[in-house]
Each structure stands twice: as C-alpha cells, then as structure tokens.
C-alpha cells in the first residue's frame, strides 16, 4: 500500500472517532448538568437577565439544534462564546495555545532524552544494581503528582537558590517579537523560536530560564515510561544477530549501541511519544497552574473558577481535537519511516 492510500484510510478512520469525541463532550457539558446557564448563575438572578444571557449564547434552542450548531461551529473553527464576556472562545484558545505547545515540546524532549539515556544504560547493565535503581526511579517518578514536583522544584531552585524564576513565561515587557523585516512579520508564539527570529540572544536565554523548571517537572514525571520502553526495546535488539555481527566487525561499542541497536529500537519510542501526548497535555494543565504559565491549561483552570461553562466546553473540545490530530500525525510518520507497516 502506498503512503498516500494509507494516509487516506487513516484519516477516514479518524472521522467517526472525532464525531464520537465531540458528541461525548457535548453530552458532558450540555446534557449532564442539565442547564449550564443556571449552574453559572449560582445565586438567584432575574429570569429576564438569564433568558437574555441564554439567547446571546445560543443556549435557548432545543438540544438537537444546539448539537447541530455545535458541530457546524467546530467545522468553522467556532468554539462558542465565553460566558464571562461573550468573546469568542476560539480566539482566546489560540492565543493561549503557543505557550502550552512550547511547554509540551520541551517537556517531551526532556522526557525522551532522559528516558533514552537511562533506558540504554539500564539495558546495558542488565540485572545489575544500576539497572534496578534506574527501573525503580522510572516507576517512582510516575507516582509523583506533577504539581507537587513542580512546587518542590520551585522551592529548591527558585525560592532557595534563585537559579530560576518561579513563575511566568518571561520578564514582563521582554516578550520576544519575532521576525520583523520591512513589513513582513512572523511570530510563532513560541518564545524560544521568536527570540531567535528576532535575533535577541538575551531574550532567548531568558525564555529558556523561565521554561526550564516547568518543562523539567513535566519531563521527569513522564520519563518513566520511556525508560522502560527503551530498556525493553534495547534488550530485545541488543541480542539480535546484526548487533553481534556489527561487533564481530570491530565497530566501536558506541556505534553498535546507538546506530545499530537504538536506531532499530527507536520506532516504538516514536509511537510512544505520540501516545504520551495526551498525558503530556494533562500534565501541562497542572504544571501551568503551578508555575503561572499562561497557556491553555491555565486558561481552562481559570474558566472553571469563573464557572464559564461554554469556554470550558470549547477548551475541552480543543484538547480532544489536538490529541486526535497528533495521533494521526504519529501514525503517518510511523508508516513513512517503516515501509513494512504499510503492507
């Protein structure tokens, strides 16, 4: 099967799942609580005010109508209006998203690098004390709530040692501006990238400093599964014939471990990165709250405090769509990298 037909088949498969996902969210946020509008107004409010409120949000229509509006809205990129000020939720989400993306990327990098490094070591000293320690470490880090870890890191490295800032994304006023050539403007919203585009090295360093603790917390909690996966994958691969044959040719041990064993063991790791993306987002919500990181997670938490149920719905839909998209991309990438899969 060619790559193209695989992609098409895969995309078609995603559609019913997406539909189910959207329906699920709708059920939870509109059907489950009964009336989200009344939930919003905890105290008594004048019926006319409530009615007007309902109309402005389109929540006065019948449920099936709301459902259709909701689905068509998602297709158009409309995720509803906030209960707080009726501004479009989609816009708020898109402005908060790059922060979460940056955190997620760095968190994933740390998780994978740590995981691979420790996993390879563990596999090479099989059943030794080092192996057991690393394996236990991998299990133990998963048991730590990421926000607790974040707080501990804040306490030690920020409040006590002053090595890193304890919250926020950058020093107010130094937001990177991105590329600005003549009239052409390009900004990704990722401060690390934008500061490089701007050519401002000190902003880049600052962005990294603010990024470090939250992504480290996130990465540490997630690295366990990568340690285990790398270890298992490497143990299997290291005993394969072509690894012994490579050693028999006198290749350097480091080449054998990385170019022969790890390169072949890597595909499951790649897939796992995609699978862990959902967990990454979940962790990001808590991490952002701990470090006052202005991303999607914190947006969601704020909306909860405001009982802004339409915004909550919009954000949850966005999370779901995002995970589905990443999952699709990982599958396609996998098929591209390993031609044997497509058959």
């Amino acid at each position, binding site marked *: 099967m060619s790559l193209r037909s695989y992609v098409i088949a895969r995309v078609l498969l995603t559609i019913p799942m997406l539909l189910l996902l959207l329906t699920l969210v709708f059920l939870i946020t509109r059907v489950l609580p009964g009336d989200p509008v009344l939930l919003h107004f905890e105290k008594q409010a004048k019926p006319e005010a409530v009615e007007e409120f309902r109309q402005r949000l389109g929540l006065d229509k019948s449920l099936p109508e709301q459902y259709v509006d909701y689905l068509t809205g998602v297709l158009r990129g409309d995720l509803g209006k906030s209960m707080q000020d009726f501004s479009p939720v989609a816009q708020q989400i898109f402005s908060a998203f790059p922060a979460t993306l940056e955190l997620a990327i760095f968190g994933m990098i740390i998780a994978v690098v740590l995981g691979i490094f420790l996993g390879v070591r563990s596999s090479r000293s099989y059943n030794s004390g080092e192996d057991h320690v690393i394996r236990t470490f991998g299990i133990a880090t998963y048991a730590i709530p990421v926000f607790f870890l974040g707080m501990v890191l804040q306490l030690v490295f920020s409040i006590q040692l002053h090595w890193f800032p304890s919250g926020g994304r950058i020093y107010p006023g130094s937001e990177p501006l991105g590329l600005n050539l003549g009239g052409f403007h390009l900004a990704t919203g990722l401060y690390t990238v934008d500061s490089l585009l701007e050519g401002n090295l000190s902003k880049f360093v600052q962005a990294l400093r603010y990024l470090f603790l939250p992504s480290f917390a996130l990465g540490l909690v997630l690295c366990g599964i990568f340690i285990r996966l790398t270890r298992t994958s490497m143990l299997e691969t290291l005993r394969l014939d072509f690894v012994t044959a490579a050693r028999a*040719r006198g290749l350097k041990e480091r080449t054998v471990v990385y170019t022969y064993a790890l390169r072949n063991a890597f595909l499951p790791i790649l897939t796992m990165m995609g699978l862990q993306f959902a967990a990454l987002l979940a962790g990001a919500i808590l991490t952002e709250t701990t470090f006052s990181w202005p991303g999607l997670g914190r947006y969601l938490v704020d909306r909860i405090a405001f009982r802004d149920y339409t915004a909550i719905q919009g954000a949850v839909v966005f999370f779901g769509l995002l995970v589905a998209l990443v999952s699709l991309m990982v599958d396609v990438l996998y098929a591209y990298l390993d031609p044997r899969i497509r058959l």
Partner: protein
Amino acid sequence: MPLLEINSLTVDYPTRVGTVRAVDRVSISVEKGQTLGIVGESGCGKSTLGLAVIRLVPSPGIMTEGSIMIDGTDIMRLSNNEVRELRGKVGFIFQDPMTSLNPVKRIGDHFVEFIRTHEKEVSRQEALEKTGKILESLGILRERTTDYPHQFSGGMRQRVMIGLGLALNPKLLIADEPTTSLDVIVEAQILELMNKLKKDYDLTLILITHNIGIVAEMSDLIAVMYAGRVVEFGPTEQIFENPLHPYTKGLLESAPNILHPERSMHPIPGSPPDLISPPPGCKFHPRCPHAFEPCPLREPFLVMKERRFVACHLYD
C-alpha cells in the same frame, strides 16, 4: 609458525542450574593458506569455538583456560581496542543472512562504515568505490549499494556478508554454518564462490558446519568435535578414507553416500550429552559401540596415529 594456534581452550557458561562447559581443552592449529573444517552435531561447541577466536563469546560465557594465538599474538591479552582492531583482520560470517544485516542501513553503508572504522584515512568516496568492486566480484550489481537489506534475497545477503568479511583483506576468515540457512542450489553457488575467493585472497579459512559433505569438499584439515572436545583432527583425506574415532565413523556412516547409494545409513544411537554434568571418562562412551573398561574411567587425550590426531582409548 601456524597462523592460528589454539591451545587447551576452555569456555564455560555459568548458569543458575550449573556450569555448561561448551568448549573443553581444545587444541588446534592451522597453517597459513589452509582450510580447516570443524564438524560436529548441534551443541558440540563448534560455534562457541569460532566466536572465541574473535573474543565474542556471548555473555555469560567466559574463556577460563588456554590460549589463542593468531599470527603469534595471544589474543587473550589484548585490550578492548586491540580486540576491535583484531576483528578488522579476522573476518566472520554468521549463519543466518536474513538477520545479520542492519535493517535500517543501506548495504553500501555497511561496507563504508566497516572500512572507515579500521582504515581511518580512507575517504567515503574511496570506500564506496571499493565497495562497488567487492560487490561486483561477488556477482552483485554495483548500483545496489544504495539498497536496503530487505530488498535482497537470502543468497545475496550471504554474499554481502562474505563481501563484508573479506572487505579488509583479512588473513583469517571464519564461517559459521554459512550455507545452513540457504537452499541447496544457492548453497552450491556460495560454496563455489568461497572456493574462488579462497584462491583470490589467499585465505586461511575456518569452516564450521554440521554438514560433512561441505567439509569434505572444501577443507584441507578436519577437526571433529563432540561435547566440547576435539575427538579427531587431521588431513581431510586421511580421516575420510580411514576414520579412526568411533564418532567420526558414525558421522560418516550416518550421511548418505552418493558413490554407494545401496549402503544404508546408520544414525548414531542415543543423543548428545548434558554439558552441565557430562558422562564420566570419555564423553562419547555411552553411545560408542566399541566402549571398553578405560572408557568410563579416564578421558582420552589426543595422540598422533596414522598421520592425524585422535582421542580414543582404542588408540592409546
């Protein structure tokens, strides 16, 4: 001076249930340009012996006794780096060509990497040139250097392995069951190729196999192994015409003979011994039709008899 000299080599595998003695005080020598065939049943230790020569005995195996001298150098004393260098000078061909190549590496890159690891001054271009030549001499189109292993058939992959083994003009080539995974026709082609290369490269070849037919065809010397010991060792012709050790006789009789198709085949009764607690005395005695009093008591040592070495009390 012989190119390869193995003296009383012993390789043990410590396991939870006991120590497996895979190679038991083996002594062999091979002169430059000769071909040695090591024959025996599965599990007799021949593969371990082959791997020991390049110090690649898989863990938990350890070489507990003896020495291996290649061109006068005791390889047991070499440092890790020197062992790596050694492996550039001793070629090794593995049994299963389907799994001996890195699936994510192009064929050409296997060669280039190998060449440049041991000859650091060679450029990538030069290495690729050389690779092309080698592949052509093996009957593979030069353009296929950019292909991946899974695009080659079994026979072609084994040619690639042979090519890799010979890429740096080694003095010694060890082939561990090189044709066992291949079908008969391909096997014949590979053997023919190996014979030709032997002459072209002036190789000293060690051929490890359970197939006596191959050994008869290709080798000058034969070493017959049983339960980790060499039981008979000498020139092929002598041993085939007049096998002295009962096991050797048994092996020859259990193989079909094209010259005498009417002769029935006699398999050797019984099965190979448990290497953790082998039988006392001569390890073959429980299956030997000629066993007598000294056999269960003492192990026989190799003695020179009728122009070859044999370890059997019948000839003490």
